[in-house]
């Protein structure tokens, strides 16, 4: 059933499972656990539709590189699936190889533990299992890149696809407008007793369950755990001071432009680093997408004025001279986009700001930092792509200044993939959750979502999130 928590003042039942967050992870877990016979309490802080009041609770400070965390996430039923693009590419076996990055261990599980769950995840995301993942272009010479094989979800909007199933499920009680405020532990501090939740009228109650799962995403999950500091001052799950550390994004580096020998024949090209190249060069993975700009793009409130001036600059062929005011590309230009793996590093992290939200919870502060490993990855991928593209005879690439001059700062953007802040590690000194997604040192608190990623690879995170949720469902139903 589905309830507006603003209209209720009590939840007197004790559930088998309490899930906090109704994004792709929360909804996948709720439906699958309910189907296996568990009673599920699903909590969503926002409403059924977008509202600026709810969204404003995602405001956070940024002291590192800007990642626009307020705008890239959505705080209402269905979560960020309400605006995701639908691109899917699964993790590969090499993502789970035992490698140390910035002195941090990789995944403690093997590829074979999530690979069998791929067809189930594809079905949830409305992908054709028999079609699989396909490339749209051929190979390049040079043995550095393969054609990128991927699939496009419609994209699946979890709210519209699954809200009826949740409403009709006898085993699920879903409360929206129910913001989680605190996790309360028993006297031993090893078991979660209940979670305190509040509605928009600030009425608070306790939600009781045998097992609790946080599915709040890569920023809110560590923020919530750090805010739960009434019984343990460092926050819950933070014995090793790892909660919030190792924030990773996928790096979107505007590495340059290209000329195609035969522009009339051009269609989008997408490549993916191959394992031999990454291993021999000791760098991360990457997608490289080459496309030709069709129109001048502008965003924001002043879109019309910006578009006018950018178009004027393109017509006058002076766009290079005015890039210091605003970065943009002119129609006909070949641009190169990337989705580059960021290695985990301890300095890139979520902490708590001194500012508080309307519920009295401290806001998150995001300090996004890349490491020397990432800089080497970016430059190595750019140079190799430029050389291989030239060898192919398809055209030539012009790399941006910062790709060739190591004294310059690399320009990079984000892909709205927030990962790693409650990472999975066998050893509690290097992570927050164990191989079963259970928070170290706590008997009944689990985390699902991209915050548990030990490394991020260069694939879009939604599909691996779903695979890990199916794996967690198996684990919890076997308990």
């Amino acid at each position: 059933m589905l309830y507006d928590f603003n209209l209720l003042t009590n939840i007197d039942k004790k559930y088998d499972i309490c899930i906090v967050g109704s994004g792709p992870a929360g909804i996948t877990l709720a439906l699958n656990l309910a189907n296996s016979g568990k009673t599920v309490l699903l909590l969503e802080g926002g409403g059924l539709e977008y509202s600026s009041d709810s969204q404003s609770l995602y405001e956070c400070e940024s002291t590192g590189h800007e990642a626009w965390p307020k705008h890239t996430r959505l705080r209402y039923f269905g979560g960020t699936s309400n605006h995701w693009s639908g691109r899917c590419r699964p993790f590969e076996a090499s993502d789970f190889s035992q490698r140390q990055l910035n002195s941090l261990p990789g995944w403690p599980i093997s590829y074979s533990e999530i690979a069998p769950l791929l067809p189930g995840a594809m079905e949830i995301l409305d992908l054709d299992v028999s079609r699989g993942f396909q490339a749209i272009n051929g190979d390049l010479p040079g043995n550095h890149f393969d054609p990128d094989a991927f699939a496009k979800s419609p994209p699946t909007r979890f709210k519209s696809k699954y809200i009826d199933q949740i409403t009709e499920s006898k085993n699920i009680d879903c409360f929206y407008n129910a913001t989680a405020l605190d996790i309360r532990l028993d006297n031993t501090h090893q078991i979660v007793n209940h979670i305190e939740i509040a509605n928009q009228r600030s009425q608070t109650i306790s939600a009781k369950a045998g097992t609790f799962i946080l599915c709040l995403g890569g920023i809110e999950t560590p923020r919530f755990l750090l805010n739960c500091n009434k019984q343990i001052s460092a926050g819950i799950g933070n014995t090793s001071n790892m909660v919030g550390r190792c924030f990773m994004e996928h790096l979107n580096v505007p590495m340059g432009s290209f000329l195609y020998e035969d522009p009339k024949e051009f269609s989008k090209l997408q490549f993916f680093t191959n394992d031999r190249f990454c291993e021999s060069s000791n760098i991360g993975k990457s997608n490289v997408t080459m496309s030709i700009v069709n129109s001048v793009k502008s965003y924001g409130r002043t879109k019309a004025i910006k578009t006018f001036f950018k178009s004027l600059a393109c017509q006058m062929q002076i766009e290079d001279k005015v890039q210091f005011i605003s970065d943009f590309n002119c129609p006909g230009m070949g641009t190169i986009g990337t989705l580059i793996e960021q290695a985990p590093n301890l300095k890139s992290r979520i902490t708590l700001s001194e500012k508080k939200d309307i519920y009295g919870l401290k806001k998150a502060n995001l300090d996004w930092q890349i490491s020397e490993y990432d800089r080497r990855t970016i430059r190595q991928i750019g140079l190799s792509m430029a050389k291989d593209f030239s060898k192919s005879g398809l055209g030539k690439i012009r790399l941006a200044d910062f790709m060739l001059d190591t004294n310059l700062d690399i320009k990079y953007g984000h892909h709205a993939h927030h990962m790693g802040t409650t990472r999975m590690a066998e050893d509690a000194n290097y992570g927050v959750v164990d191989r079963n997604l259970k928070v170290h040192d706590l008997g009944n608190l689990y985390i699902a979502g991209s915050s548990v990623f030990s490394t991020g690879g260069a694939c879009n995170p939604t599909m691996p999130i779903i695979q890990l949720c199916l794996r967690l469902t198996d684990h919890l139903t076997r308990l």
Partner: protein
Amino acid sequence: MSEFVTRRTILTAFCLASLPIQGATKEIKLPNRNTEFLDNVLPIDNEFIAVDGWVIPASNLVKRVK
């Protein structure tokens, strides 16, 4: 000030308007073609160079110098 007219918009308009003036007042230098070209060449490895950022086979440079 209207929310649609930002400081950046005014700066953009000013810079665009001043470009012809900047161009007119620029000192005209006769190019020494080979020297300027070589200033922009960055060796990458035995096979490739970057000329003004364009990554091309080093053999292209040999052809040009000849």
